[in-house]
């Protein structure tokens, strides 16, 4: 199996609204795939549908050879999917350390990964005992990513990592995500095309709940017309 994830013609609903209307793509193992598209196109819903946070009514989601659609979100996540949501969702009543600790699926996981995580994010080590929300926006984003690394996750779903961050910090973020992709597969939702094109190997364009184009990022970069058509000015 070369594909860690196969999303096969899924349809998802939020209440009565038909949000995803046929999204279909595959994610090769060890790659970074960017989900692109305009605001409200269904990128975040696609991530949530993979995790089961939004219910998939039609189609299949195959993770590591196993059909996961219809499973409970916690069961899907426990198969080895890490989620870094939009707006970070740091737990404000928990300290930085607890925010990491809560992501353990087996006892002692955090201690095993401590060094690896603090090498990537030296800032977190200094602020271990602060409350999650006392961190700056960039540090919160780091914490949200670090949280997804505590457990053994083979697939990371990262939603809008550069949102609201200063350019210097975005550079740092790109560096970190690049390093991560050496160990796990990454699906990235990114509004900032420059960030996406620096990181991703593959792309999926989602438009009005449908996956309209997929392919190699370098082909997309060369195709200015397509960028113009689906993503507006790039």
């Amino acid at each position: 199996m070369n594909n860690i994830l196969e999303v096969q013609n899924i349809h998802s609903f939020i209440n009565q609204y038909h949000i995803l209307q046929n999204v279909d793509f595959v994610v090769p193992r060890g790659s970074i795939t960017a989900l692109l598209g305009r605001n409200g196109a269904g990128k975040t819903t696609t991530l949530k549908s993979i995790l089961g946070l939004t219910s998939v009514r039609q189609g299949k989601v195959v993770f590591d050879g196993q059909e996961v659609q219809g499973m409970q979100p916690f069961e899907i996540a426990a198969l080895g999917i890490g989620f870094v949501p939009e707006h970070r969702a740091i737990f404000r009543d928990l300290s930085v350390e607890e925010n990491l600790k809560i992501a353990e699926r087996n006892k002692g996981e955090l201690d095993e990964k401590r060094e690896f995580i603090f090498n990537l994010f030296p800032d977190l080590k200094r602020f271990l005992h602060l409350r999650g929300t006392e961190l700056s926006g960039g540090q919160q984003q780091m914490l949200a990513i670090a949280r997804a690394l505590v457990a053994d996750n083979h697939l990371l779903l990262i939603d809008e990592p550069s949102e609201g961050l200063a350019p210097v910090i975005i550079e740092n973020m790109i560096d970190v995500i690049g390093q991560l992709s050496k160990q796990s597969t990454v699906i990235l939702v990114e509004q900032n095309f420059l960030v996406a094109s620096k990181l991703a190997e593959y792309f999926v364009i989602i438009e009005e709940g449908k996956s309209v184009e997929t392919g190699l990022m370098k082909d997309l970069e060369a195709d200015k017309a397509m960028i113009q058509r689906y993503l507006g000015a790039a």
Partner: protein
Amino acid sequence: MKTTLQKNSKAILVLIVIAAFLVIAARGMSGRDVVITVLRGFSVGSVTFLVAAGFSLIFGLLDVLNLAQGALYMIGAYVGWTVYVRPDTFVDVLTPVLLILTAFALNILWKHLAGAIKMQAKLRKLISWVLMAGGFVLLWIFLTKYPISLWDLNNYSQSPITYSYMADQGLRIVPAEATFEVISPIIAILGIFVSSSLSAFGLALRNREETQLRKMNWRQLIAPALLFLVAIFAAIFNAPITAWMYALSTNWLFVIAVGVTILTGVGLGALIETTLIRPLYNRPIYQLMLTLGLGTIGVQIVQAVWGRPEFVWPKPELFRGTGGACPATNLADLIENQCSTIMILGGRVRVYDEIFIPVVGIIVLVVVWILLKRSRIGMIIRAGVQDRQMVEALGINVRRVFTLVFALGVGLAAFGGALAAPSSGLTPTMGDRLLLSALIALAVGGLTSFPGAALGSLLVGLIQQFMIKYGQIGIPLPFTDVVFKPSPALVPASTVLLMVVVLLILPNGLLGKKE
């Protein structure tokens, strides 16, 4: 630090004003009255806290307003009373209850069996309902044939009131044992187990399509097997266990009674959450109606089984001493004579009511606080209060934590009932007043704040007690000769007034967070 002070300046100001009011109120009394009033305030506050804390935990994580909390407090009192005053009834009931529990604890096995059976969805639904209903009817038939020695509401000499009175006088006579007459013990036990298993299997069959089949592990069968063994053990050794419990010192009996009450509360909570609340998440109005209805049903059931009239729960020996050195004037005398009262600053204080209850309240506060702050479950609860989806996305089974928290909350309320009953007595309506107090305490302290629940409960308890005391001694109104005596009806009104004032200034309560 300055910023946190500034952020909470309003709350601190309100607290200072309330404290000042209480100090002024205290200055109008003799020192003796102040001691008793304050201690009673702590006592009422502690009991209120046990109900309010459960309420706040459940609301914080599950977003469910459990209006049955008052009734569950009351049920806790009655369950504890039964274990304490009529251990024989408790031992008789133990076997059937454990058998039913075993049948439902075998859920994994039923799910597995249900998964192995392939049939049409419609047929599956029909058969599941038939099994559930049939199992229930059979269970009912077997239960009515199962011998349980019980009091008799229609015969005063056999009523709970009389048994309470006798226990209070130290006349702990074992009532006549109920014996198997209609059916043999083996058939009764098997009947109860099989019929409840049928119901449990029916339930599993109905839910089959929603859940994925998981691997079965023999370890998962240990708990049901243990339950079953205990049930059989209790059936075989029914008479010796009963005799042993009757011979036990009332102190230990009290501990057992409270323990059983907590377990019952936890079990009831888990049952209510999994069967009734779970289908109604995201439908708050239905939850309100359901929990309100459950509370009413609880009151009716208790009235039917234990009767309407009030009766007492005699205090354990430890708090009944009346020897020469009583009321005790110092701690040594108190411990040596197990005095029922102690003199503090000239006030005669009841040890159980005004010292033991607050101490237990504080212990529970500390234990739950540590649980929330130090344990993994506590961490998940604190995180889940804020963002359930993210917790689930980390691979944590939030549903199971929901059940646990609901069970814990109900267990706390039942504990409160058992703790308060020896002081307040038992009536089927004892929970109503307390539910109101607990809700007001939560509104004052902040709905989802755990320390807020403690603070609010304490304030509500103190204000109630001050009002009651002033109802006795009267407030001389300044510039007039009139002495105003607040009538008892003003006691709950005063706490409502407190709530209104606090909420006008701090819409989220004293320690509540802004949403």
